[in-house]
């Protein structure tokens, strides 16, 4: 199910649709591809409405999650399929298949059957098959979902490089937020059939529009707060018994808001050190070492628990059970409308 989605994807961009499974991102992709028809609304491709154009005549191709390679055809015949449908001449097909296989670094494997290839290779065949007709838009439905982590990382950069080289518009569906942030020019976050936020990866990460986006992309601590005032740069809010400065547009005094704080933007200081603004009293409950740094849980005086990620050298203050202070800079907070 997809409801009231309004989205403009720019020519030549790498656009990701990101959301948990069942959020409607695949349905949206299938609507674009022409496998489903919208109950209302329009789909425009290069300015003209295509919602009544069948999938076979839309100038966009899809790379399926499980590749959907034709099991009875060789790799070369799979790749050639789109050209054969366009009745392209035989020698041109041969030449372009060879080019397409070279593009995805599968030279010489044309005679193999799909089942004789590894998952990563099958993935490349699917890519070559979809790209060979030079579609205006390439739709990719979780194309890396079936690969293991290492291979997935490799394919991510390869895909990104390929997209840059060809200049083809990529619409990429994934539930992996890291993947979406790493590859995309822009990301659209979906939940429950609705498009919640569209923006560049850093916008999505640093300025999530609501609690769902803040929690789904990366990790966030949430603090309930009430606006008590503002000056020319910052809002003054009250939360957990403290008065805090946060960067943001003016909001009426008295409004309840939610503050979203990224664990890696929090700092921990020994209790009593009061040089900084935005201090929250707490007690260090737990600290584990993860190699890339420390991961700590701090219980605030009101009982809520905050998570903080610290660089490995910051181990000086980390004595479990001790009283500490949490601090953060005013621009590092996202202010969300309170849901209720």
């Amino acid at each position: 199910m997809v409801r009231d989605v309004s989205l403009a994807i720019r020519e030549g961009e790498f656009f990701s649709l990101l959301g948990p499974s069942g959020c409607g991102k695949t349905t949206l992709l299938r609507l674009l591809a022409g496998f489903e028809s919208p109950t209302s609304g329009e789909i425009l491709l290069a300015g003209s409405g295509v919602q009544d154009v069948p999938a076979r005549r839309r100038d966009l191709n899809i790379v399926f999650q499980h590749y959907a390679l034709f099991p009875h055809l060789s790799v070369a015949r799979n790749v050639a399929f789109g050209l054969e449908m366009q009745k392209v001449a035989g020698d041109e097909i041969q030449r372009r298949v060879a080019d397409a296989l070279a593009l995805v670094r599968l030279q010489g494997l044309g005679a193999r059957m799909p089942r004789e290839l590894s998952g990563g290779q099958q993935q490349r065949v699917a890519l070559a098959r979809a790209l060979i007709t030079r579609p205006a838009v390439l739709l990719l439905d979780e194309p890396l979902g079936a690969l293991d982590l290492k291979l997935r990382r490799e394919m991510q950069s390869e895909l990104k490089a390929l997209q840059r080289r060809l200049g083809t518009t990529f619409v990429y569906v994934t539930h992996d937020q890291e993947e979406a942030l790493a590859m995309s020019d822009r990301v659209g976050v979906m939940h429950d059939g609705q498009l919640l936020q569209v923006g560049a990866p850093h916008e999505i990460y640093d300025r999530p529009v609501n609690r769902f986006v803040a929690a789904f992309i990366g990790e966030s601590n949430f603090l309930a707060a009430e606006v008590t005032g503002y000056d020319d740069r910052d809002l003054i809010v009250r939360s957990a018994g403290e008065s805090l400065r946060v960067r943001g547009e003016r909001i009426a005094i008295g409004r309840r808001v939610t503050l979203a704080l990224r664990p890696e933007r929090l700092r921990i200081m020994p209790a009593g050190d009061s040089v900084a603004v935005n201090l929250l009293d707490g007690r260090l409950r737990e600290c584990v070492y993860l190699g890339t740094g420390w991961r700590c849980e701090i219980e605030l005086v009101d009982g809520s628990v905050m998570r903080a990620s610290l660089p490995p050298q910051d181990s000086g203050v980390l004595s479990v059970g001790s009283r500490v202070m949490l601090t953060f800079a005013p621009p590092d907070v996202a202010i969300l409308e309170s849901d209720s």
Partner: protein
Amino acid sequence: MALDARAASRWLRLASWLAFGFLYLPVAVLVIFSFSASRYSMVWSGFTLQWYAALADNARVLSALMNSLIVAGGAMLISAVLGTAAALGLRRARFSGRGVLAALFYAPVVIPEIVLAIGLLMFFVLVMPVPLGLPSITLAHSVFGVAYVTIVVSARLEGFDAQLEEAAADLGATPWRVFLRVTLPLIWPGVLGGALLAFTLSFDDFVISYFVTGPGTATLPLVIYSMVKRGVTPEINALATLILLVSFAILALSIWLQGRNITAGEKV
């Protein structure tokens, strides 16, 4: 405990093989005595091929064989086309009433043969004037043939990835070319297996042919029936042996095809 279980499984095996023996006993008897020289007794009295030779001269048997082949061939063609269409349609159908429609395609297998037989007889006589004879028998056999092909092809389609068809459409194939280039190549063993099953079922059908045939037209099973009614002769043994041989061969081929896996690794 363990002994108990082992003894039980021994009994189970014994009972099962006895049941198989029961199923194939008449086959063995017919085959063996088709080569026996004795005319009347069930006693083995030397090997002979005379009953097979006699068959080759039996004009009635030969013309009935011709009729049977025509009927079975016609019923097979109708069944293969319509049954495959039904299976493809049922797979895609998402509307309410799909269950009722599916029941329509499976019901001819379950309904007592004789009910279908008299129904078709009256239908051809009273409602749809089809000449009683080869045309009526062929049409009648297509009824259960369509049902069987639908079942066999549906089973084949169960492991079929519909995304393959979407992929083909996405790459510019028209629905007809999607069918020819992707769907059919992947399901043809099922289609052929179902068609061969429809062929044997038609070739071996007695009850329905018996009712809907017209004067002067006989298929092989009808000829056998009248021979049996007149008395037991070793010639029937020879004919029965040949029929069983052909039926077994076609069925084995059909079953092999149904189990054959083109995609290798997707479906057992």
